[in-house]
């Protein structure tokens, strides 16, 4: 099945800094999702992005499906951006389960 890898594993930023998180996947996918898991454990949908670029406020994402990677950009980071960022791709089998990367732990310091 598909494998999903994320980098970096953890990241510490000063408030106001920009960052780029990367997600590599081992096979072609028909969708890719980015999530933010907040300190209370909830997975918040950030982007559903099979290909191309999308922007939502200070966040944007780009997926290059032919090269099997996706990038999440966070600009002007805030302390509320702290948490774990996951990318996930569907397994492609009958279950349609998501295969999650190992996540990037982001800490934004004031």
């Amino acid at each position: 099945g598909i494998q999903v890898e994320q980098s970096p594993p953890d990241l510490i930023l000063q408030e106001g800094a920009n960052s780029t998180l990367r997600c590599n996947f081992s096979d072609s996918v028909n969708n890719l999702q980015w999530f933010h898991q907040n300190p209370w454990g909830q997975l918040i949908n950030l982007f559903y992005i099979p290909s191309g670029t999308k922007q939502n406020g200070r966040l944007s994402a780009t997926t290059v499906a032919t090269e099997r990677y996706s990038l999440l950009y966070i600009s002007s980071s805030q302390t509320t951006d702290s948490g774990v960022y996951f990318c996930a791709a569907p397994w492609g089998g009958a279950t349609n389960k998501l295969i999650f990367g190992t996540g990037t732990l982001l800490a934004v310091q004031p």
Partner: protein
Amino acid sequence: DVKVTQSSRYLVKRTGEKVFLECVQDMDHENMFWYRQDPGLGLRLIYFSYDVKMKEKGDIPEGYSVSREKKERFSLILESASTNQTSMYLCASSLSIGSRNEQFFGPGTRLTVL
């Protein structure tokens, strides 16, 4: 907006108890999923359902069962809770496979089994 709710945010149970975790979604999604999340192991699929009364095993179904009597509700049942089922449980829902299959998650239930 899609809303997925779970019956409890935190739950403490004793070994051997029967435990019910409830999940409700309000967007008429066909698919519903139960995952558990553990440090170092990531999210793993326990069971999923693609229609009312239909269920399929995921990667780690042992010790669990599920029920889907209505389209909007998917219950996870721990028949006899054990300490190794202490975990974060996350419910998700999505539209049919083959269409836009973006998954939406509930807030999670942190279950502790003593």
